[in-house]
């Protein structure tokens, strides 16, 4: 892996917003992100006062806790050149929704807007800002899941594909429903499990129909949902986060797979 041209600052100081799921379920994605960002020439720091972006509260209508968590994140990530998250959903929360949480006159509004302007989803940051040039080699036939928030709130669509083009041997086979929701929806999947299952089954069927044995995506929530359902149904589909593949961390067990 090497880096091509960088936008100024030459070696940006990045605050990694790990995201709660990556932090607790699959830290490897966080380390993949660090590896990719450092290889692209960035300095990565991880503020320890981070927990979650607040979406569980935000999407449940709990405005007070959402604002408290947002203020915490704004505080923890002050001063970085960029804030990068290995998730379109969490980056979308910081970028699109934090400013809306505060009234125009509230001093937190300006701070939220400042954070929003510095926040990026990992893969689009690597492609669009760092213009990272990724070189790797991994023979696999993969299909892609465009997670909803990254796609529709941040326009993450071509960037992961252009980065993956640097991995020799990796063939990407697009499913016609790549942009359709997987049925995760945060707390939706536990509040309306039957409907969620129906939706993820359609996703699995469409992925399987491509003939790919691997599904890649940039949001761990979706990937856990898809992998968990594939395993329950016995669908032979490996599920991995794109960052892990780009960072060459393909010797890890796939999401939901064991070591034994």
């Amino acid at each position, binding site marked *: 892996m090497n880096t091509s041209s960088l936008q100024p600052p030459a070696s940006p100081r990045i605050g990694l917003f790990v995201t709660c799921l990556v*932090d607790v379920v699959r830290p490897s994605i966080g*380390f993949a992100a660090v590896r990719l960002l450092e290889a692209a020439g960035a300095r990565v720091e*991880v503020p320890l006062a981070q927990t979650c972006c607040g979406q569980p509260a935000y999407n449940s209508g709990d405005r007070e806790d959402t604002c408290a968590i947002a203020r915490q994140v704004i505080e923890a990530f002050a001063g970085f050149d960029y804030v990068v998250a290995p998730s379109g959903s969490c980056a979308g929360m910081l970028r699109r929704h934090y400013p809306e949480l505060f009234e125009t006159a509230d001093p937190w509004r300006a701070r939220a807007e400042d954070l929003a302007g510095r926040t990026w989803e990992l893969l689009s940051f690597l492609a669009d800002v760092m213009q990272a040039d990724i070189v790797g080699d991994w023979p696999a036939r993969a299909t892609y899941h465009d997670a909803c928030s990254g796609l529709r709130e941040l326009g993450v669509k071509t960037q992961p594909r252009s980065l993956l083009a640097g991995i020799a041997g990796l063939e990407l086979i697009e499913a016609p429903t790549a*942009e359709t929701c997987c049925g995760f929806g945060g707390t939706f999947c536990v509040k309306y499990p039957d*409907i969620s299952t129906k*939706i993820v089954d359609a996703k699995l069927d469409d992925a399987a129909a491509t003939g790919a044995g691997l599904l890649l995506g940039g949001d761990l929530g979706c990937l856990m949902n898809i992998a968990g359902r594939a395993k329950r149904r016995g669908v032979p589909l490996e599920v991995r986060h794109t960052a892990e593949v780009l960072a060459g961390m393909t010797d890890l067990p796939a999401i939901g797979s064991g070591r034994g």
Partner: protein
Amino acid sequence: MQSTTRLFDDNSRKALADAPLQQALGKLSSNFTVKRALAAARLPEFEALRDQARDIKDHVLAHLDIYLERFEANVVAQGGVVHWCRDADEARATVLAICHEAGARTATKSKSMITEEIALNDHLEANGIEPIETDLGEYIIQLRHEHPSHLIAPAIHLNKNQVEATFRAAHTDLPPGRNLEEPRSLLEEARAKLRRRFLDADVGITGANMLIAETGSIVTVTNEGNADLTMTLPRVHIAIASIEKIVPTLEDATTLLRVLARSATGQENSVYTTFATGSRRTDDADGPSAFHVVLLDGGRSSLIGGAFQDMLRCIRCGACLNHCPVYGAIGGHAYGWVYSGPIGSVLTPGLIGIAEAAKLPGASTLCGRCEAVCPVRIPLPRLLRQWREKEFEQGLQSKTARFGLGLWAFLARRPQLYRAVVGVVMRILGRLARRHGSFYNLPFAAGWTADRELPAPEGRTFIDQWRARAGGHR
């Protein structure tokens, strides 16, 4: 209409087990979403038209009183009458009074969601007037005593065999041995049955896709021409519409028409677009001798100027239903009231109350596809979240959900405590599931593990590992 939205969970379970429904929903994509995408791509100015359509509706909502009064003045100038109705009761009574005055025994109807909202058919029947639905889909579900399950495809939940069985049960005067194999033969049978009813009806009741203030016209859009027969053949035409259907000018109407059919079915125009103005003039070849417009508020005016005003921009194209993964899984009836899909989940709480419709705003993954295709750019995910905030404020969510959220938020607001707790829990879970890589069953995650494995944590959290790394990172 009586709501069953409180039974949303049961309704949706039934829907998921309904094989013909599931088969029908499987065709949503090829029938609607693909065609909408092609139609949008063929028109370079489509996105700009969506902006214009949004702006027209916003302008109307900001000056609703002015345009409604202008509309009334122009209807009256064309020989018509406008009836202002606050709620369903007033609207039903108004329609019934007009029917009685006309000495009506039967009333033909073209598709109207407002008449569903006010349960007009039941009221007419109870008062000795037979309502006859003339849209093919509406005709089918009327025979089956069902309600529409989609804004523009009311019988989308049924397959051909079910329609055949319905016709055989209803049309007992026809030879039992007749061949109804082909969809065409079903269509022709309905057409023959309806032709007589069109000619006999005393009153014709239509909805209106738009009301035009500058001319006093109503606009109807159909693919079957049934609205035209409904409004021109009987002596009396009643158009019923809610107040937000008003647009200022003919030109505004055509702007909305350019996004309406494309968003709904992918057609450039529906087959029949009709502008009806006033009653029959002396030199007109046909038309009703009386023209009434029943304007329903039905809770809309209370939404003006509030946090949910944007949903009154809706032009009922159905695109948000067609693109919604939840609607695509359960269809329309599970939502339990007139309107389904994302717009239903936003509109229903506004019209019948959030306590009654508490299950609906949560029934969305917030995937955002509805907003991405809405021809008038209604921010549906934001409005769904706003309803969730109302529910939270009023304590309408389940105790378990509130407790879980409260506990999580308590920890998430205290990073040090959070680190300590998740650090321990993830180490234990990681060790438990190291071999299998996932959990088949976890007592505190039953909603998740009912139908899927829960991928197990790797073990030590990222932050714990990062903190342990040597180096100058903070």
